[in-house]
């Protein structure tokens, strides 16, 4: 690492033209990235971190954006270059990888062509030379059978593999600077670990500088030498990553860090614990409160799932005969008690969401038994099913698409109450007002429409709507995953408070191990449609038995810079698929009891 900066950003201000007026979204940002150094820009949505990175590459729409200040890359001020000169820089001296590997590659070109394009464009290589070099790059990013995959299309690759292709493309011209804009956010946690390791190793090999944009403090701690914290378009704090984490000066930095769920932070807590909310102005934190005594284990469980199986048939061929099935949920059983939170964790495709949907009968299970509050859910007729849905409600992941934009918030919340004929319009109105207060909003917001609310507020509205029927069980399907850390902490706290005051049982479906550790009483780890390990939270997190549970936990980035430099070893095993042939007979699984209530699949 030398002291001369590769990239020097001075007083960068970026504005967008909104309704004929210039509105600044990034104001006065200055930082240096030295050779071989990794600098992270961290912040929540709307902090301007992505706009900063796009400004550096000058990838914003030229008509509706304006960049002021200096961006000096290798001694040249990028803001002063012509468009043509800038194109010589892009993908050559500085390249970029993006958040969405699924959509960032052109679907109609082979990945080989998309990578070699960079080489023919910038390095003047012939097609054959570019092909050979591309295969070398694919090998470098550890794509198995690189030469045979050259002519494949993006849809033939998984998300993690596509991100490797993006990285190969970005590294093709041996750039001095790599800008990585949330490169692992859309990936599963074990895949995220692989990609982070890959970036670290390639950085050492190539000696390039990395500007890493992320919202994830765990990732920052793991990868960054220095960190810039951004908040509402401004740079609030800059410094070595250790200093930011351990001696953060700005109240916002401290608030952000305290809201970050940290895997392993619950070792001394017996019960789910509220996140300590830090005052943004003063930086003082409240005490983290444990919420104890909500679980009613004496009574029969409010939800009992026995041998649940949900499969989706796959048809193909001339006559569309069934040729196989997605074994989304395969023989799972668990109990959920009143006032308890049971978390289902696992990576994409593990069947956790299908389990939630099967319980609500939003998808039709293949077999098994679901007893909800005494009803046998799978035997209910449509009319009874409707009334059953009163006792179980769902909160979804995306608060932006799960509320009808043409329906006022009050109507949305009172609709279930009215449709189930639980009272008069006046009572519905009172109920709505009461619910809005309960979820931390105010009663007079009922007449407003979803677009007037922020993501966190909308998720509160979705929670209020789920509560309108006084359910006993709430299925929370990735309900906090799309939220910014500070909002996530607040919504988790709200769920914990509601559990305490209303004695709710939560089936908390999440891929986020750290949040799960914080809010659950018990945890079930799912893999390929099966529960591989289930038990009390402390038992599973402190004494994981199943190899998959261990792998999952070691992959979670821990927001502690002291652990930097750890390598997981780049494996490139992919998530396996639960698609089976028609003649597949699932084996009968054996479980071993580790301790009281802690079961692990052994065969």
């Amino acid at each position, binding site marked *: 690492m030398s002291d001369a900066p590769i990239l020097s950003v001075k007083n960068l201000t970026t504005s967008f033209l909104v309704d004929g007026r210039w509105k600044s979204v990034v104001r006065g940002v200055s930082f240096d990235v030295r050779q071989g150094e990794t600098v992270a820009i961290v912040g929540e949505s709307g902090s301007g971190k992505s706009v900063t990175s796009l400004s550096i590459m000058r990838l914003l729409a030229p*008509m509706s954006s304006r960049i002021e200040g200096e961006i000096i890359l290798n001694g040249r001020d990028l803001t002063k270059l012509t468009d043509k000169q800038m194109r010589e820089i*892009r*993908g050559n001296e500085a*390249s970029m990888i993006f958040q969405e590997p699924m959509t*960032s*590659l*052109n679907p*109609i070109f082979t990945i080989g062509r998309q990578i070699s394009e960079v080489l023919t464009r910038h390095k003047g290589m012939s097609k054959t030379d570019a092909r050979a070099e591309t295969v070398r790059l694919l090998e470098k990013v550890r794509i198995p059978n690189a030469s045979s995959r050259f002519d494949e299309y993006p849809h033939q690759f998984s998300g993690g593999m596509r991100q490797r292709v993006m990285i190969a493309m970005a590294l093709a011209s041996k750039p001095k600077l790599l800008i990585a804009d949330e490169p692992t956010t859309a990936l599963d946690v074990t895949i995220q670990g692989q990609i982070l390791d890959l970036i670290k190793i390639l950085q050492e090999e190539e000696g390039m500088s990395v500007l890493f944009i992320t919202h994830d403090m765990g990732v920052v701690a793991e990868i960054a030498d220095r960190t810039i914290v951004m908040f509402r378009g401004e740079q609030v704090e800059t410094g070595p990553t250790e200093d930011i984490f351990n001696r953060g000066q700005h109240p916002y930095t401290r608030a952000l860090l305290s809201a970050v769920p940290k895997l392993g932070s619950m070792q001394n807590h017996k019960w789910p614990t509220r996140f300590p909310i830090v005052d943004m102005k003063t930086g003082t934190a409240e005490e983290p409160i444990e919420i104890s005594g909500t679980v009613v284990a004496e009574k029969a469980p409010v939800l009992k799932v026995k041998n649940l199986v949900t499969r989706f048939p796959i048809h193909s061929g*001339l006559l569309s005969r069934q040729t196989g099935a997605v074994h989304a949920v395969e023989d799972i059983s668990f109990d959920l008690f009143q006032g308890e939170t049971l978390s289902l964790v696992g990576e994409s495709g593990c069947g956790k969401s299908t389990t939630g949907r099967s319980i609500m009968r939003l998808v039709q299970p293949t077999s098994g038994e679901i007893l909800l509050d005494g009803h046998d859910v799978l035997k209910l007729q449509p009319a009874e099913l409707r009334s059953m849905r009163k006792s179980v409600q769902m909160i979804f992941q995306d608060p932006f698409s799960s509320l009808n934009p043409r329906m006022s918030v009050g109507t949305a919340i009172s609709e279930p109450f009215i449709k189930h004929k639980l009272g008069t319009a006046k009572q519905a109105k009172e109920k709505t007002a009461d619910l809005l207060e309960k979820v931390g909003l105010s009663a007079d917001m009922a007449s407003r429409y979803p677009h007037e609310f922020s993501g966190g507020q909308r998720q509160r509205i979705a929670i209020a709507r789920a509560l309108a029927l006084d359910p006993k069980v709430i299925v929370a399907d990735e309900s906090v995953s799309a939220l910014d850390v500070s909002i996530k902490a607040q919504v988790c706290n709200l769920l914990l408070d509601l559990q305490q005051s209303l004695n709710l049982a939560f089936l908390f479906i999440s891929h986020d191990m750290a949040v799960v550790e914080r809010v659950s009483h018990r945890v079930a780890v799912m893999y390929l449609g099966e529960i591989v390990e289930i038990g009390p939270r402390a038992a599973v997190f402190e004494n994981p038995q199943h190899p998959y549970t261990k792998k999952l936990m070691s992959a979670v980035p821990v927001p502690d810079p002291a652990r930097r430099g750890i390598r997981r070893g780049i494996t490139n095993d992919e998530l396996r698929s639960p698609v089976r042939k028609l003649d597949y007979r699932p084996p009968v699984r054996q479980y071993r009891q580790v301790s009281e209530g802690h079961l692990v699949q052994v065969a």
Partner: protein
Amino acid sequence: MPVYIGKRLLVAIPTLLIISIFVFSLQKLLPGDPVLAMAGEDRDPATIEMLREKYHLNEPVVTQYVRWVGGILVGDFGVSLRTNQPVLELIGQKLPVTVQLAVMAMIFALLIGIPTGILAAVYKNRTLDYISNLIALSGLSVPNFWLGIMLILLVSVNLGWLPASGYESIFVDPVRSIKTMIMPAFVLSTALAAQLMRHTRSAMLGVLSSDYIRTARAKGLSPRQVILSHSFRNALLPIVTLSALLFGELLAGAVLTEQIFTIPGFGKLTVDAVFTRDYAVVQGIVMCTAIGFILMNLIADVLYALLNPRLRASL
């Protein structure tokens, strides 16, 4: 691929059957008797009876239908009630005219619609976009008969560049054939070009704002490469479908345009057949149009799959 096409052709059979039933019964339900039209002024009962016998019009409707469909299967669409010519022969005479007109109109529409669509998308909300939109709107709203007459006045009568009307087979005198077709084809193409332009614009806008175009720009590709190679090939998918359907529509003939430029095409044949209650001809035309549409749809789907690697594998 052959399996896919075979499957699609199999699926087309019930479609054609339904259309045939529909066409057949619609004709039976229409008022007016072709035999009366044929029998002449004096309506001699013996002649009428003879004619009914000859054209099997006195048989039960179901028998008539079966006879008709059976004929079609062996390539016999019956004979024109008016001219006694086989329907297939009539159609065979007019089809090349209409196909030539349709192909030329389609070429014009693609040449006008796609580039303006791309320009409009690239220069979204700027002058070029507004101009393209204005042209598209005029293309859709100016009636063909007016545009046709104006063109004849300007190009043929005043400037004398192109013949005002008529038809020459492309096999006899290709140059003259194309010259006579230029104006009608252009008139026909205006509405299509406008639709194509709107579709191209919106497809391009969708593609241009996609993540992979951002990736292409981040690679340092030139605007030309980004727009023509990376964006347009993706935007092409919906355009291909639309074009094939529009072409199918063109094959059905263009009544007004053919009338103005006195082109002996499908449109004119249809109108004449309808006015003289020439059932056999009308039925034949409708069936041919339906087959044409189904074929164009199939071609569109195959092209779509060929352009889309994701579907190509499943063919």
